């Protein structure tokens, strides 16, 4: 009974897609640029294996694709064909009958040297064609990464865009009451698994950001009651202060080549933006106003920098050249704008907007046009981009005594999801695609 009703719903939704798919050119594809897309029904079968791992990998792949909002994994209970050999063509009519427009089959085996070998094939069921087939090797304890890499390959083949599932997020893990909140830097996979603490809770830590080129994070710590910007090597745990500045340094971020840290230096009442070259250790001052200039973020080509300033009264977003010349305000809407972050694609700047007692996450073009609010509420803050520039993560805080939690939202604004963490979490920063 359940199976029949599920199929009925799927068939009803997919009528239009079925008529298109009979043409010879029919290809399973998703055009992300269309706006609010109908998720693509996809069947992800358990990978063949002699233990639970095949089913676990399929589950991680399905969860990744589902969370993207672009795919609707078909309930396994509806499957008709039982895949016995993933290297043989499936019975396509068994999959089109349940409206699975795409089908994933695979196998995971143990190599002689102990490594895992996973292979998968992606089929276009209506065209009856293989779209891609790949295999990967890894250590057994790395199987979730294997699944994320497969999900990325499927996402890329069907959308034409790079995936973002084989990535990690560094964030601030918060615990304890609001008046005595303890904070630790933490890192996890983008789906919330494999959480690991990077610092103890002794010192207040804020705003971690990934290096684009190394296993390294820059962040702010109040260690020794001297609030400063630090570097942390993720593999060795080695830490160092960035520069020797005569005051609080904060709001750090790497340049796109990973060779510089850009940050604010506070001196008495005003904050200005500086860079420090990590090789030569030379520092360069980029702004000099009596205002608060902070939250700098480079464009992906490294040629320009967006930042926030209250030089005009309230916080607004500005763009300048990388040498500090040509500083221009780009935000002119109601309210104040802060925490601008340049998209890795270069096409948009994400921001936090404060207006009418609400805090919103939005995007605008680098010239300030085309502002769109993606989500709005009591308090949303601090967007960070997925490496493909299609999804943002941010933190949300309710009123009163509770704590913040992480959310993701895609550029359509329709697909918002909570990212589960073991305790309160804030200040997320998305890694580049892992290598």
């Amino acid at each position: 009974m359940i199976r029949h009703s599920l199929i009925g719903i799927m068939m009803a939704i997919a009528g239009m897609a079925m008529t298109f798919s009979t043409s010879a050119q029919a290809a399973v594809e998703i055009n992300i640029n269309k706006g609010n897309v109908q998720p693509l029904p996809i069947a992800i079968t358990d990978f063949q294996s002699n233990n639970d791992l095949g089913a676990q990998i399929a589950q991680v792949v399905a969860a990744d694709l589902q969370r993207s909002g672009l795919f609707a994994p078909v309930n396994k209970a509806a499957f008709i064909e039982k895949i016995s050999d993933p290297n043989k063509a499936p019975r396509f009519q068994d999959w089109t009958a349940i409206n699975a427009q795409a089908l994933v089959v695979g196998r995971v085996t143990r190599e002689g040297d102990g490594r895992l070998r996973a292979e998968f094939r992606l089929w276009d069921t209506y065209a009856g064609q293989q779209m891609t087939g790949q295999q990967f090797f890894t250590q057994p304890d790395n199987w979730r990464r294997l699944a994320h890499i497969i999900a990325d390959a499927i996402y890329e083949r069907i959308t034409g865009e790079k995936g973002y599932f084989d990535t990690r997020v560094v964030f601030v893990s918060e615990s304890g009451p609001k008046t005595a909140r303890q904070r630790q830097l933490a890192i996890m996979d983008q789906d919330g698994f494999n959480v690991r603490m990077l610092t103890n809770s002794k010192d207040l830590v804020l705003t971690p950001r990934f290096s684009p080129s190394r296993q390294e994070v820059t962040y702010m710590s109040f260690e020794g009651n001297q609030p400063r910007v630090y570097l942390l090597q993720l593999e060795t745990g080695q830490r160092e202060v960035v520069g020797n500045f005569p005051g609080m340094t904060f709001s750090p971020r790497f340049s796109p080549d990973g060779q510089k840290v850009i940050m604010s230096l506070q001196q008495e009442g005003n904050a200005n933006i500086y860079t420090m070259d990590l090789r030569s250790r030379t520092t360069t001052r980029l702004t000099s106003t009596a205002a608060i200039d902070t939250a700098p973020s480079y464009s992906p080509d490294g040629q320009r920098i967006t930042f926030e300033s209250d030089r005009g009264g309230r916080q607004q977003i500005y763009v300048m050249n990388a040498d500090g010349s040509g500083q221009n305000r780009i935000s002119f809407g109601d309210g104040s704008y802060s925490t601008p972050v340049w998209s890795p694609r270069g096409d948009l700047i994400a921001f936090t907007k404060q207006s009418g007692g609400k805090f919103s996450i939005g995007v605008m073009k680098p010239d300030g046009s085309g502002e769109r609010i993606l989500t709005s509420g009591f308090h949303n803050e601090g967007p960070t981009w997925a490496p493909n520039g299609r999804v943002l993560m941010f933190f949300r805080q309710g009123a009163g005594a509770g704590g913040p939690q992480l959310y993701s939202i895609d550029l359509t604004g329709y697909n918002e999801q909570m990212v589960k963490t073991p305790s309160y979490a804030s200040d997320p920063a998305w890694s580049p695609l892992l290598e």
Partner: protein
Amino acid sequence: MSRTDTPAMSRMQTLARNPAVIALTLALALAGCANKKNLPNSAGELGLGGAGSATPGSSQDFTVNVGDRIFFDTDSTSVRADAQQTLDRQAQWLARYPNYAITVEGHADERGTREYNLALGARRAAATKEYLASRGVPANRMKTISYGKERPVAVCDDISCWSQNRRAVTVLGGAGM
């Protein structure tokens, strides 16, 4: 002083380092939530603690009888008239007890973004330090530090709390930059 809970009080939690601070914070919380028009300048004026209960020249004396903190308007860093009275008393007390160095801690409420609030707290600390300097406190006795919005003393979901968190606190000793 009566401990009858007002609605605002019952929603509020306070951070306290010692009993004197508890008393002061409660007093200020009441003042901010229930009686904003006549904000008292110190717990002493409310009859809390009283001069007799703290050793003159002690940190308790400073906190209870002088008042260790001032408050700011939303998004503002200017030292209000009521805050000037508190700082005048702080300057007098620090002149009388010249062995103390101080750290001025600047804080912001939660209704702003993290980076901006760090700078705003620093601005408030700097404005406070500047005012104290104008009242004769030597600059080399004073350090500042900003905690942005990260160290609230009051937790609720309305302006009665936020106004308590927009503050500069003068800490005897302390460690800033």
